[in-house]
């Protein structure tokens, strides 16, 4: 019964939380937020899905990315640091600034690096949550199976 409510919550809230994660990531360089926090927020959204729908459904939704995401994040982070070679050394930042409709926008390699951080955090969190969730589900099935068996025997 609870699961139905959880699914409803998941349906409404997960996209919102993911959007919040993106929002926190984008504003991270100037206001509270950033890759690490955004990654954790995204991970909690995914955990909500796991709790509501089980690991298999979550795997179907995010599955193919889940584990490679950590590696992709590391690659992006190192790549961002390597881009700095263009500006005179490893980790030297490069910034592009321009204004659009009165708003000043800026993009730089530190933000790209931050994206890598976010991916690593999400990738690691999903890996652990999925694996532990699977184990927990297996334990539950095992318990119900054992319970059913003893019931059968008693009958």
């Amino acid at each position, binding site marked *: 019964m609870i699961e139905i409510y959880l699914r409803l919550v998941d349906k409404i809230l997960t996209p919102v939380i993911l959007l919040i994660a993106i929002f926190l990531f984008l504003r991270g360089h100037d206001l509270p937020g*950033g890759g690490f926090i955004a990654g954790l927020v995204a991970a*909690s959204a995914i955990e909500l899905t796991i709790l509501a729908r089980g690991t298999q459904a979550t795997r179907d939704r995010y599955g193919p990315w889940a584990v490679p995401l950590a590696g992709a994040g590391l690659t992006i982070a190192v790549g961002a*640091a390597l881009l700095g070679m263009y500006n005179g050394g490893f980790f030297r*930042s490069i910034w592009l600034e321009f204004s659009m409709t009165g708003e000043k926008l800026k993009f730089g390699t*530190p933000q790209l690096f931050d994206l890598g951080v976010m991916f690593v955090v999400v990738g690691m969190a999903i890996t652990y949550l999925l694996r*532990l969730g699977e184990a927990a589900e297996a334990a539950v099935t095992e318990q119900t199976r054992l319970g059913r068996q003893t019931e059968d025997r008693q009958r």
Partner: protein
Amino acid sequence: MPALALSLVILFVSAPIFWLLKPHRSLWFAWLSALPPAAITVWQALQLPAVAQGNFIAERYAWAPTLGLELALRLDGLALFFGLIITGVGACIAFYTAYYFEGEPRQGFFYLVLYGFMASMLGLVWADDLLTLFIFWEGTSITSYLLIAFKSDYKGATEGARRALIVTTAGGLAMLAGMVLLGLHVGSFNISEILSAPDIATASITPVALVLIFLGAFTKSAQFPFQFWLPGAMAAPTPASAYLHSATMVKAGVFLLARLHPTFGELPLWFWTLFLVGGFTMVLGGVSAIRYTDMKALLAYATVAVLGTLVMLLAFREKYAYEAFVVTVLAHALYKAPLFLSAGIVDHATGTRDLRRLANLARAMPLVAATVVLAALSMSGVIPTMGFLAKELMLEQGFQRIEHGEAFVGGLMYAASALAALFMVGAIVTLTWEAFFRRQADEQHPAHLHHAPSPGFVAPALLLTLLGTFGAFFTGVYENLLFAPAIAAISGESTALELKLWHGLTPVFLTSLAVLAVGVGVFALRNRVRRAFAAVPEKFSSLAAYDALIDAIYHFAYRLTTVIQGSPMAPQVSVTLLAGVAVVVYALFFATARTSVLLDSLEIPSIAEWLIFALAILGALATVRARSRLSAIISLGVVGITVTIFFIVFGAPDLALTQLLIEVLTVILLVLVFFRVRPDPSVEMDKRRAFRILVAIAMGFFGFVVVMVNHVTQIGESISPYFLEKSYSLGKGANVVNVILVDFRGYDTLGEITVLGLAALGGYALLRSPQIHKLRRRIVAARSSASEDGAQPVSSIRQEATEVGHD
């Protein structure tokens, strides 16, 4: 033209190209595969006259100039001599490989590694910089590991490969230390500069550096007591054994010794180490070869004997020793590689290399038999082969020493050489006779011939063996082109050579004949000799010592882990926390360079803050007093949330956000983990409760002390103002925390996310294994209850298990 670097690049580049070409599709790739090494061989051969004149080719490339690293290559006589063997034999091996792995889809991968090895080996002998040499040296170790472990589903292959890797890289590390000592002493890693540095032979660090370099050379060249890895490496596919473990890689150690010989050769340390170790290895390998009935194992021990011979010859600084050295290197490459290749052909055609099951193969494969007979003649040292010339020169060296009044060294060498040689004669005659000529195999189940080898399969071996057998006739053509420059590089002074096959009826020649005669006698008594060897207990071998050492390391690691982590959670955590307390106490006592900062005014916390304190303490108490795990986890969450509130109150929104999210995820993770970890009923919770309370209080108290001390004292200027000031101007961000994370302290973050990524990998791999265990348990359960009704069929569970294993 940078020909040397270009050659290496050609080999390195053709490796992946060959892989992508999928050469197993057609035998025509045999020709293509032999092309790059053959071309480099021809190029090297064209350099012979110039190098013999003393015109060396040298190339230097800056690599990491700030570290003093450079890629230095130099083609002198010794480098050219070894380089010719490497690429020449390499071309034959590459050709042979196409036949050996006919139709095998992993053939391309074999070529990939083989070419990588060839390039590393060539770079090793061409290197003129110790660090360049070391890098190529390690390259050969790694590629040879991959080649030995090629049949990765066969346990012997992976074990042999790991053993070879551990032994050779351990020696390589010791060698690196020795090289660094030499390089720092001279101030340059350039080999030519080190060898010509004044007084380097008498420097105080030289003995230490030499012993370390000896370790590297002896492990690589399978000298006693490290010789055991070489027979184990025979699990490699035969082309790899023939190439690495007879003609090239094992000679790397010998090559390095030859390289260092002109400068360090006159030291007594050099002479006695090489003489004794090499001599003992020679006798050990030569005598024990006949014991083995696996053709490749027999040949491997014979190789150990030759490597010992070469090391022993390098101990001397006399003409005959040098001549014997170069002739032995060439002769050995030209007879041992064909013998290995023939063993591979026999294996391919009959499915076994076990001499007990083989007989009478000469009729089915006459070309192979001819190859083996010719190579065996050279190996036994029958006149007029190159092997005869090598043995003659070696005995002559011993004889000369005796004549010059050094009866001990000369006599020892003479006797040891003769002893090893006669047993090797016995071994190789045994191999030839039993596999190819006798009528009946020993065992009840003799091997059957599947198919006769095609001529292309035999051709490379035959070519090499013909060179080795009849090359000795024409030494006059090439001795001053090939041998003399190599000898000049080893001895440090150039001389002209005049090698002769026939010296008349000298004592040395008579000894040579006697060795042959007694060797045939050993062959006649081979079964008794084998039985006698079989009686020697296994535990006296250095393989047993090595295995005992590795076992001891595993055992120690196991014991250490049991002590530190084997107990239930509570004692483990106590150890960690107490260690933390010890560190804090230490830091407090010894960190004297602190200035105390007076707090401006002590603020009395507001009522809201008092309430948060109270909540945190209540949460902590509830955690400790909790009866169930779930309530403990939730109370712990409450403590975390109060900390979050602290961060908000004191204006750290980033920290607060992070803390909050971590708290949420931690609670969920803990719940998931405790789903799996059932409480162990055997652990008495209340045992040592007082001790644990004490540990907890100590940790809390010292944590408090650290925070207070940090707050009221200061080591240097605070860096916070710098970050606050520069955050926007340098980092282009108003959020200082984020700018520090991704810009100012980017290296730290990179390290941290690397750890996170590894943790993700570890979790991915580790957390799935219990499921597999669970499935295994279910398989066992299903088997035991197979007779009962309703049990799940075992096969379906196993299907499930493989799926879990592969997702």
